[in-house]
C-alpha cells in the first residue's frame, strides 16, 4: 500500500508542474503585460521604462520566467494584489475556509441523498420509486446552478422572507444563536450545490449498484441465509462504492467550478468570487494565484481518489 501511494505521488507532482506550466504559458502568450499602462503614461521617460523592464525581467525567455515564478510561489511569495493592496497569499487564506466549508457541506449533503436513494432505486429497478428518482435526477442536473440559486432566493428570501440571501462571515451573535444564524445563511448555497451533485451521483450510484447486484457472490450471500440488509451493506455497497468514490473525487474540479457561480449569486466571500472580482478588475497576480490554487486542489483530490480507491479495492494496489 505504501508503494502504491508513493507511485501515485510521483505521478501527481509532474501533473501539478505541467498544469502550472500551462497556466504560465497561457499568461505569457496573452497580449499585453503589466507594464502596458506604464508605457502609456507620458510622465515616465522611456529609459526608466526600459530599466524597469530589465529589472523585472519581463523580456527574458519564457522558461526562465516560469522557473522564477515557480520558485517564488514555492517560497510563499505569491505576489501583491493590484486591486486589494495586500499580499495575495493573505487574501487567499482569508477566503479559503469559507469556500471549503460550502463545498465540503454540499458534497456531504449530495452523498447523503444519493447513496440511500441510488441503492434503494437499484434494489427495485423500474419500479415507481426508481422512475420518480430517475426523472428527478434528470431534472436536477439539467437545471443550471445559477437558475436554481435564483429560484431559491426568489422563493425563500424575497417571497417568504425566511432565509437571508447575503452571506456574512462576521455574524454578531454568540453561542447557539451564532450557529443558527450561520446555518440559516448557509443552507441555500449548500443545498443548491448539493442537490445538483446529488442528481448526477444518484444515477451513477444506481448504475453501479445495478452492475454489482447481479453478480454471483451476491446470490451466494443470499443463499447462505444472510438477511437482505447485511447482503446489501456488506457486499453490494462496499463493492459498488468503488467507482462511485472515483467519480466523487474526479468531480471535485467541477464542484469547485459550481462553487464559483454559487458564490457569485449568494455573495459568499470565497475564492471563487475572488477569481471573478480579480478578472473583472484585471488583477493578474490574484488570478494566477487563485487558478494555481484550484489546480492544486484538483491534483490533491485526484490523488486522494487514487489512494481511497487503492484502499477500497485491494486488487488495485498490488499492480
Amino acid at each position, binding site marked *: 500500500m505504501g508503494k502504491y501511494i508513493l507511485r501515485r505521488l510521483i505521478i501527481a507532482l509532474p*501533473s501539478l508542474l*505541467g*498544469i502550472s506550466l*500551462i*497556466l504560465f504559458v*497561457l*499568461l505569457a*502568450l*496573452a*497580449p*499585453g503585460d503589466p507594464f502596458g499602462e506604464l508605457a502609456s503614461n507620458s510622465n515616465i521617460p522611456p529609459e526608466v521604462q526600459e530599466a524597469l523592464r530589465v529589472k523585472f525581467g519581463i523580456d527574458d525567455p519564457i522558461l526562465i520566467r516560469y522557473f522564477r515564478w515557480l520558485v517564488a510561489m514555492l517560497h510563499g511569495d505569491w505576489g501583491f494584489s493590484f486591486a486589494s493592496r495586500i499580499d495575495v497569499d493573505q487574501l487567499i487564506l482569508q477566503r479559503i475556509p469559507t469556500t471549503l466549508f460550502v463545498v465540503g457541506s454540499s458534497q456531504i449533503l449530495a452523498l447523503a441523498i444519493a447513496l440511500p436513494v441510488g441503492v434503494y432505486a437499484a434494489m427495485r*429497478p*423500474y419500479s415507481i420509486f426508481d422512475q420518480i428518482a430517475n*426523472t428527478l435526477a*434528470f*431534472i436536477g*442536473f*439539467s*437545471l*443550471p446552478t*445559477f*437558475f436554481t440559486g*435564483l*429560484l431559491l*432566493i*426568489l422563493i425563500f428570501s*424575497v417571497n417568504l422572507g425566511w432565509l437571508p440571501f447575503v452571506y456574512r462571515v462576521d455574524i454578531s451573535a454568540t453561542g447557539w444563536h451564532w450557529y443558527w444564524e450561520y446555518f440559516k445563511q448557509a443552507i441555500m448555497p449548500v443545498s443548491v450545490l448539493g442537490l445538483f451533485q446529488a442528481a448526477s451521483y444518484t444515477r451513477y450510484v444506481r448504475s453501479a449498484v*445495478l452492475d454489482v447486484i*447481479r453478480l454471483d457472490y451476491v446470490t451466494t450471500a443470499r443463499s447462505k441465509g444472510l438477511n437482505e440488509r447485511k447482503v446489501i451493506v456488506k457486499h453490494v455497497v462496499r463493492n459498488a462504492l468503488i467507482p462511485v468514490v472515483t467519480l466523487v473525487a*474526479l468531480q471535485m*474540479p*467541477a464542484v*469547485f*467550478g*459550481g462553487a*464559483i*457561480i454559487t458564490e*457569485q*449569486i449568494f455573495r459568499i466571500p470565497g475564492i471563487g468570487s475572488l*477569481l*471573478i472580482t480579480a*478578472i*473583472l478588475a*484585471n488583477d493578474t497576480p490574484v*488570478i494566477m494565484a*487563485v*487558478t494555481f490554487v*484550484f*489546480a492544486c*486542489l*484538483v*491534483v490533491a483530490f*485526484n490523488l486522494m481518489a487514487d489512494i481511497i480507491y487503492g484502499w477500497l479495492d485491494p486488487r488495485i494496489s498490488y499492480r
Partner: protein
Amino acid sequence: MAVASVVILTAVTLAVLLGPLIWRVPINEIDFTARLAAPSWQHPFGTDDLGQDLLARMLYGGRISLAVGFSAMAVAIVAGTVIGAISGISRGSIDAVLMWITDLFLALPQLPLLLLVIYLFRDFLKNLVGPEGGVFILIVLVIGCFRWMPVARLVRAQFLSLREKEFVEAARALGATTPRLVIRHILPNSLGPVIVAGTIDVAAAIIAESTLSFLGLGFPPDIPTWGRLLFDAKDYLDIAPHWALFAGGAIFLTVLAINFIGDGLRDLLDPRKVM
C-alpha cells in the same frame, strides 16, 4: 421520454431558427412606458428593464446559444475522435504520450481556466474578427478544448477492443493499409458511444456558455444570449420574476431535452438490460 424530448428539441430549434421571421418585433426597441411588463398579448414573455420585448430577445439569443452548443460539440468530437483514433491504433509510446496529455487536460480546473482564457484573449480576438465573432470563436474553441478528453478515451477504448476482431484481421490480410483500416472499418463501428457523449457535450456546452454570460464574461452585453438574460434579470427578481423564469426555463428545457435524448440513445446502443 426520449421521443418527447426529440420533439421538444426540434420545436425549440425551429422556433429559434424561424421565430424571428414570424415575430418581427426588433430585439432592441427601447420602450420605457412598458418597462418590466408582465406577459401580455403584446409582449408574450413580458419586457425587460428597458422595455425590450423578451420573446424576441430570447429567440435571437436562442440561436446563439444553440449555435455555440453544437459548434463546441463538433470541435470536441472531432478533436477527441482524431486523438483517440491515433492513440488506439498505434500502441506503445505514441499511445502513452497521448494518454498522458489527456490525463493532464482532465486534471485542469475547467471553469477557472475558461474564465482565465476568456479574460486574456478576448481583446485580441475582438480586434481580429470583431466583437461577436471573436467571442464566439473563443468560447467554442475553449469549451471544445475541455470536452474532448472523454471522447478520446471512449474512442481509444473502442479501438483497442475492435482491432482484435476478425474482420479487421481479414481486411489487413487483404492488404488494407492502416489508414484505410481505421477509416473504413474500425471508426464507423466505434461511433456509438461517441454519439452519446456528443449529446451530453451539447448540453454541457450550452450550460458553459450560459454560465459565462451569467458571470458577465461571455458575449458583449447587447447580445441577448440566455445566460446574459439571466444575468440582467437577477437584479430585478422581486419585481419582475417572469424575466428570470422565462430565460432560465428555456435553458432548463433545452438541456433537459438533450439529456433525455442522450439517455435514450445510450439505452438504444447498449444491449444490456436489467432483468
